[in-house]
């Protein structure tokens, strides 16, 4: 019995330690804030001068804002895969990383909604969507499902946090009064009663089931922004599953990177261990294989037939203007990494970090390759316009606004991981208890 109390004390000490604003975290937040302000200056320019500050034109009218939006939605699906699908299937190893996955999911999903606004020609008319919304437009479906997903993801993060928040409210000293007060409110009068635990588990299970169709819907609807058009290259019935399977690759890579950083900077080496990196590496191999399968279908089937409008687009992708990026992304960003991950040594923390970073970078450019090149090959020739309309190159302003979305993601993820314990304390305690008994 004494043994268990000692263990609980260590767990609490280790996991509550990062929940404070140290010097390092203040500098990090300051850096993020300054970068955000600099990037927002470019957004101000875009508001003032119009979308003309971007490299977009009448032919490539969706550029890196939209591909970045797709990337953010994709990466946000991981919360559903890890906490919900694997959790419901009874995988025990996900427990210490489930909150990391949920925080990454919530942060990506929140920023995704803002990216869409940055792509609007008239953000001042955002309310028109609610005043004059038409149900047959996939954009309306997307807005509805993004809002739902953010709400359910926040709940999925919050419900299992309640016992930990109560603990923070009771035990954590040296925090600003407002933060203490916030914990008190958010803990909802938690009293460590067994019935309360029962309720929490029940609600979590309910949310975990609920989020599966919502997460599938959010990325399927995002894929429909393209698949519902008549454009050669987008007009594909497998876009939904193609996007969803790609989303898990990006999300697993993001979680692995997150695990590495939290483990090192929050001193959690004895909680997030080689074992967890090994498991994540294996999961990454599985989802990458599924994605490779969808890529084969999406590319080889039309490339075999070289039908009318699709031929030009595919030729430029496979050996033309976009070929270099295409092969780098497919081979360097997907095939090679998953082959490397087949080796046990490559699933150690540091190699995992490097491989996941390459995968995540590849995943971002993959979205670019899905969105942009198709528009450079419309059915009718591009004529009587300036040469700059022939190809699309993002401008500094556009890149800065895209960087802002990543900075905002990091700000949200940092704040969440600084005010809440990144590993579920009460679940860990339960596990320890079970092991001893």
């Amino acid at each position, binding site marked *: 019995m004494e043994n268990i109390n000692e263990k609980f004390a260590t767990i609490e000490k280790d996991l509550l330690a990062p929940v404070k604003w140290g010097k390092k975290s203040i500098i990090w937040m300051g850096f993020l804030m300054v970068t955000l302000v600099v990037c927002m200056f470019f957004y101000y320019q875009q508001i003032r*001068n119009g979308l003309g500050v971007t490299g977009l034109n009448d032919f490539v009218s969706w550029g890196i804002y939209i591909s970045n939006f797709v990337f953010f939605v994709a990466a946000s699906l991981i919360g559903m895969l890890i906490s919900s699908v694997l959790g419901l299937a009874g995988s025990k190893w996900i427990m210490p990383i489930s909150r990391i996955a949920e925080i990454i999911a919530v942060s990506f999903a929140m920023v995704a909604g803002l990216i869409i606004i940055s792509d609007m020609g008239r953000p001042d008319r955002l309310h028109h969507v609610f005043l004059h919304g038409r149900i047959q437009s996939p954009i309306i479906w997307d807005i509805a499902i993004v809002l739902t997903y953010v709400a359910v993801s926040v709940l999925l993060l919050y419900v299992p946090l309640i016992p930990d928040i109560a603990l923070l409210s009771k035990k954590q000293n040296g925090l600003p009064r407002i933060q203490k007060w916030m914990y008190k409110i958010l803990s909802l009068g938690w009293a460590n009663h067994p019935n309360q635990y029962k309720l929490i588990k029940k609600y979590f299970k309910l949310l975990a089931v609920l989020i599966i169709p919502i997460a599938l819907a959010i990325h399927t609807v995002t894929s429909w922004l393209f698949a519902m058009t008549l454009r050669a290259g987008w007009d594909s019935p497998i876009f939904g599953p193609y996007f969803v399977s790609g989303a898990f690759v990006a999300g697993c890579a993001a979680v692995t990177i997150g695990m590495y950083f939290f483990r090192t900077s929050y001193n959690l080496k004895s909680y997030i261990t080689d074992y967890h990196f090994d498991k994540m590496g294996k999961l990454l191999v599985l989802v990458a294989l599924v994605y490779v399968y969808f890529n084969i279908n999406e590319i080889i089937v039309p490339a075999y037939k070289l039908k009318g409008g699709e031929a030009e687009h595919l030729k430029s992708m496979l050996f033309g203007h976009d070929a270099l990026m295409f092969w780098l992304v497919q081979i360097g960003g997907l095939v090679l990494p998953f082959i490397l991950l087949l080796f046990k040594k490559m699933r150690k923390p540091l190699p995992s970090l490097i491989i996941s970073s390459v995968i995540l970078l590849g995943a971002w450019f993959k979205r670019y390759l899905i969105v942009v090149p198709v528009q450079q090959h419309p059915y009718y020739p591009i004529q009587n316009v300036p040469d700059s309309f022939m190809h699309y190159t993002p401008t500094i302003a556009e890149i800065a606004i895209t960087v802002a979305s990543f900075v905002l993601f990091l700000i949200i993820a940092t704040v969440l991981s600084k005010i809440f314990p990144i590993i579920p304390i009460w679940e860990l305690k339960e596990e320890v208890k079970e092991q001893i008994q």
Partner: protein
Amino acid sequence: MGNKEKGKQSRRKFLQNIGVAGVGAISAPAILFTACSSSSDKKTKVLTPDNKLIEIDSENGLAIDTTDKSYLNKIGREGIPGKKFVMVIDLGKCRNERKCMKACQSEHQLKPEQHHLNVLEMENPSSGQTYFMPKLCQHCDNPPCVTVCPVDATFKRQDGIVLVDNERCIGCRFCIAACPYSARTFNWTEPRDSEEYKDITYNMELNVPQKKGTVTKCAFSADRIREGKLPYCNSACPNGVYYFGDANEDLVTNGTTKETVRLSKLLKQNSAYTLMPELGTQPSVYYLPARENS
């Protein structure tokens, strides 16, 4: 049998003509406010939309302000009842003089790179011969741009015209992505001569003044049609390329020669086609193929 058929046909034709006249009378909205002259100074006879001739006070009855914004918005969205506008483009006659493009750009406040109407140089894949093809909004009967618009800023009117309300448009550009004909253009920056146009009341049918951050496209010159005139591009063409008219009347008028011909006959005799019919968009613009050595 032959006689019977003939009789039937001529009767149908007669009815059709009456119908045409009736539809024409109702639809010409000018009649709503341009009154038939009457002997009395104060009374005016006008035809109502349900085809009744009534007398009203000329002072009160003519009080519709045709430059009023809510009035312009209302008629812009409703369209002209009983009509189904179509255009026929005779590719054999196009000499790439681009008078149509110039007229269009100057009327619609467009910059040189913005095209409601774009004359493309195309190549016949079998003979290798090139020809010029004016490409504009096809005013599809199954318009992919209208289905995807999240805010009803682009819409299909009862007379077949697809318009954009640039005071509603949020600039998401989904319609640009959805249009297989690349018929739409965007105001990426402040529109041309925006200072000059800033006090003008917005006319949806002309889509002027243009607004930064919104989509614009060919309107079949809906403002001109309302006045009973042919579209700007049609009138500007020196080569007789364009025909415009009402499919319900089965008549189209050539913009250059002003000659009116039967639409069905013109289409049939010249093996007319529409652009990419396999997409199922059902365009309202017909093309007459360029004939070899013509």
